[in-house]
């Protein structure tokens, strides 16, 4: 009970602490719109021939003739009501666009993260148990390769090998085959939705579409995860309480898994939070290469079309997700490490 209370208190404290950061982001996106070249009114005008009177009219309705602080207050008010503005390219409210594309990005990022962890943790553990062995060097090589090759190159290479040469992967465009019927949008995650409606063929197709972009992203974040696991496990293995565990004759398995690994995963947890946030923001390129209908490619398209409202929305969304992810990591940390909740 007290543990739950403790977690609740931590969540509250963390949310409070993140308010200034969120406020900063809001201020930044607001200023972004004022600073970027171009008059928003010009974009909304009926045409290039719109007269001064019409422009002034638009400015007045948009509130652009008011003093900056007042505009900011209105902007925050709009945000509070969930109004992120209108996208000019899609003609829809930004919030609706983001909500529609968010599951695609989340599914890709989460799947890639799980994939990366499934690879990185065992590799990191093996490397730490046999430091400076051939295996350790092999892991180091793969990791280095993953970091140095840009994601769009990895993506194109994977497409070239698995789609063009081997023909194993499907056409790398989008989440579902253009001719297949998408499942009813229950959660928005295709893999889950297909399973829920029991469409195994559809699930397989969606999985096929997902695997290459997910691999591309996983390779990119393999390095920080595997290297951190290795370093952290190595240092824990050298600590006093591991010596204690061995001195009472515990089995190697128990020493490594229960005593060493649990302690070693604490710093890895922090890295996972950072990696996840980075992936969400950095998957713009992967989404482009694989024509993935996610928020990254949406924001990039909007930016190229000088359509600023979606960009603002994107930046805000990423900021909020960043805060949420850190919150979750922090709560997990408090559960795993009793020393945190003691303080």
């Amino acid at each position: 009970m007290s543990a739950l209370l403790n977690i609740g208190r931590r969540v509250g404290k963390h949310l409070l602490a993140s308010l200034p950061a969120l406020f900063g982001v809001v201020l930044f996106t607001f200023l972004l719109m004022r600073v970027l070249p171009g008059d928003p009114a010009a974009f909304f005008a009926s045409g290039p021939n719109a007269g001064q009177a019409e422009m002034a009219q638009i400015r007045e309705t948009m509130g652009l003739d008011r003093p900056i602080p007042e505009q900011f207050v209105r902007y925050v008010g709009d945000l509070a009501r969930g109004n992120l503005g209108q996208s000019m390219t899609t003609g829809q409210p930004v919030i609706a666009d983001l909500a529609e594309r968010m599951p695609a990005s989340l599914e890709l990022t989460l799947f890639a993260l799980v994939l990366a962890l499934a690879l990185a943790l065992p590799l990191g553990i093996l490397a730490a148990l046999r430091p400076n062995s051939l295996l350790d060097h092999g892991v180091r090589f793969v990791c280095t390769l993953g970091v140095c090759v840009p994601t769009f190159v990895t993506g194109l290479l994977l497409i070239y090998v698995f789609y063009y040469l081997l023909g194993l992967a499907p056409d790398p465009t989008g989440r579902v085959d253009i001719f297949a019927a998408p499942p009813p949008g229950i959660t928005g995650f295709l893999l889950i939705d297909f399973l829920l409606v029991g469409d195994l063929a559809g699930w397989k197709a969606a999985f096929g579409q997902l695997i290459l972009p997910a691999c591309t992203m996983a390779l990119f974040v393999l390095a920080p995860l595997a290297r951190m696991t290795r370093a952290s496990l190595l240092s824990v293995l050298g600590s006093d309480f591991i010596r204690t565990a061995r001195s009472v004759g515990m089995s190697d398995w128990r020493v490594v898994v229960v005593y060493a690994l649990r302690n070693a995963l604490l710093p890895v947890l922090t890295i996972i939070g950072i990696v996840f946030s980075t992936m969400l923001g950095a998957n713009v390129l992967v989404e482009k290469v694989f024509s993935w209908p996610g928020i990254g490619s949406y924001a990039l398209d909007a930016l190229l079309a000088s359509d600023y409202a979606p960009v603002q929305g994107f930046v805000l969304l990423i900021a909020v997700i960043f805060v949420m992810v850190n919150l979750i990591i922090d709560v997990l940390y408090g559960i795993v490490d009793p020393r945190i909740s003691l303080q």
Partner: protein
Amino acid sequence: MSGPLLDIQNLHVAFSTRAGMVEAVRGIDLQLAPGGTLAVVGESGSGKSVTAYAVTQLLDRAARIPKGRILFRGEDITRADPARMKALRGAAISMVFQSPRTALNPIRSIGLQVMDAIAAHENLPKAVLRARALELLEAVRIRDADKRFDAYPAELSGGMCQRVMIAMAIACNPSLLIADEPTTGLDVTTQKTVMDLIAGLTAERGMALILITHDLGLAASYCRDVMVMQQGRVVEAAPAVDIFRHPSHPYTRRLVAASPTPTSTVDELVGETPSVARAPFAVPREARVLLDASSIVKRFDSTLAVEDVSLTLKAGESLGLVGESGSGKSTLSRIVCRLADADGGRLLFDGVDIGAIPLRTFHESPWRREIQIVFQDPHESLNPRFTAFECIARPVRRLAKLTDGAQVKRRVEEVAERCGLSPDLLSRFPHQLSGGQKARIGIARAVAVEPRLLVLDEPTAALDVSVQAVVLKLLDDLRRDEGLAFLFVSHDLNVVRMMCERTIVMRHGRIVEEGESHALFRNPQAAYTRELLGAIPHFEPVQAATA
């Protein structure tokens, strides 16, 4: 059972390092009968811990055993395979380590850790394991063991953690317990209870005990036999009573002499008896009050660390501050040297209210050079990127305001020589120096700016006894020659008695007793002071024989 329990024959242990193979243990022999008690005594680098780790095969990867045999119950375990060692460790040979707080898994409850130790050798259902673990925690006298069962190490004191460690070690009734400096870092009264517990449990359960320690007093109080090691070799092995009454090897004699006793003087520690006995240092009666602290209060969050403490210190006087961890002695010393602010009270130095000078600007005030500090850990308190010269020259330039390079150089060299550092050491970096040399640099750095008050925060706690002896001698000489005043913080009562004319005993942030050192130690008034004095292990032949 016939024959020794443990028989080590001509054991050599070498470590492969970048500089080639280094022999840490060079041919030692050791026999221990079942139920016997043996103390392995030596200073750092003597190879005493390496010997213990060689027995349990817990040496690190770089170690090799090129020669020698280790027989346990007649079985050669020198190079026993890992599975065999796993079966022996915990069930037949157990260890208790130093620094108990780090020796336990920080994110696993203590009860589970004790259960793990039992489960390593016995396949029992969870409920039985739990009951056995609880019994063990009670056997090591953890109060409210069932309530503490789910506690994490960070929630317990160092002494409590060491009890848990002992519970884990004895969980499967081994016949040999190796305790590697089990009380280093613990308070003197905690040390006594932990050692009494180890001695009691091993005697009760018929276990043999090997106590690895640098403390001759501990060795004499708790073990029948003593083996003295130096640089990987055994220099002397004999019953404890004999070794301290008639130490035969020069090194043992030096060690015995260097260990502070209730009657020793600083000169005796370094083994010199001056032809003319030096008169005990006396502060001139007319000496003026240098430091006057009154009603000092310091709070951390809601707990009072220092509660209404007043003290005065005359010019040239040495005042000892003793107490256990948490007594507030270190906090008080930090307040006196203006490294921390007090929450109440007044701090006068030479009649000036230095407590009123803000902490942030105190380093610019002229008083900074008057009050200097010697820190506890000689290694951690030196900048690893500065040479010894630079370490001493910094304060000379900044506080003594010497700007001329030649002048600075002359001052640094003078001070270094005064502190027993040869000039060729000055170009070295801290990691290239020994603990004693680093301690000298710490002292040289402090006295280089010619302060009037030196605050010493456990200046010798991290040093070996023989090094401690020469450092204490240096400090004592400095004080006599330069007329420095000392505020000497220590947990070692014998050291304080030798170094200080007056002593203050603190507990829970308050002064328990205060008085002239010799009188206070001879005839302590407060019960707590008596308890502290009683807890010091001693090895005087007379007392050891009756013990």
